[in-house]
């Protein structure tokens, strides 16, 4: 039978993970900023066809970011549980 060792990540490993996540989150947030300004410009110009797709994409980006944050919280929770 195959078993998996559940060893928690060390602090250095978690720092590396946070750096990777942070780079990803920063790119997504910049994308959201661009999306918001482009949507606002189009909407103020009377073009409302992009409003709903842009809102959906922005919500998707938020879900992605929240998922990454949830993963980080889970890493720390597992770490605390295993270290007593």
């Amino acid at each position: 039978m195959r078993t998996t060792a559940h060893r928690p990540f060390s602090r250095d490993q978690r720092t590396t993970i946070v750096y990777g996540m942070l780079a990803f989150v920063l790119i997504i947030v910049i994308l959201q900023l661009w999306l918001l300004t482009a949507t606002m410009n189009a909407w103020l110009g009377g073009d409302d066809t992009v409003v709903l797709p842009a809102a959906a994409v922005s919500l998707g980006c938020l879900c992605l970011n929240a998922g990454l944050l949830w993963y980080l919280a889970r890493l720390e929770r597992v770490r605390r549980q295993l270290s007593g």
Partner: protein
Amino acid sequence: MSEVTADPRSPIDPQVNSSGREGLTGTAPASLYGPLVEREQITIAPDFAPADAQPAWRQDFPIDWPQDQYVERRDFMKFMVLTSAAFAVGQLWIAAQNWWRRQNGSYEIRRIASVDDVAVGGTIVFTYPAEHDPCLLVRTSDTEFVAFSQKCTHLSCAVIPRPEEGIFFCPCHEGRFDLRSGAPTAGPPRRPLPRILLDIRGRTIYAVGVEERTV
């Protein structure tokens, strides 16, 4: 003898005659079988030198820099996710405003002035569609009238008509719009002025709608 500057997190002390290992042989430090200190609980100075080699102020107020760095990045990531939420809320706000604008329906037809009230090259200020939406009616020739919102599309300052130059001028940031089309020709504005749709019935000029444009 030089001070040992190895990484203090390492459980193996490479130097035989270092502090705490006097009289011992082999490579195991004297504290190897003592109570274990968790690796992440060890305070590490920025130069990785041992604690007793640090200046007094750092010994009194030690900061675990790797831990500090981890917490800082983690908290910054939380702040970025909060920023992401703010942007998403902004998008939803635009969608809600758009829905509200559609619910309000079409524009009302409102009398602006009589043709005889405006001389060629002259202007009249009126409000449309709401009471707080100032607009400008300009007579460019005997038979031609144009009307635009008076709010600059940059930061909503009131534009000033200059028919002799063929422009609307925004004094706040020196923006310029073409008098006939409302298109931006200079300065920071990027979008044209919203055009007020006109209908001339007999000798009376009516505003019948607003045309917002991106180019």
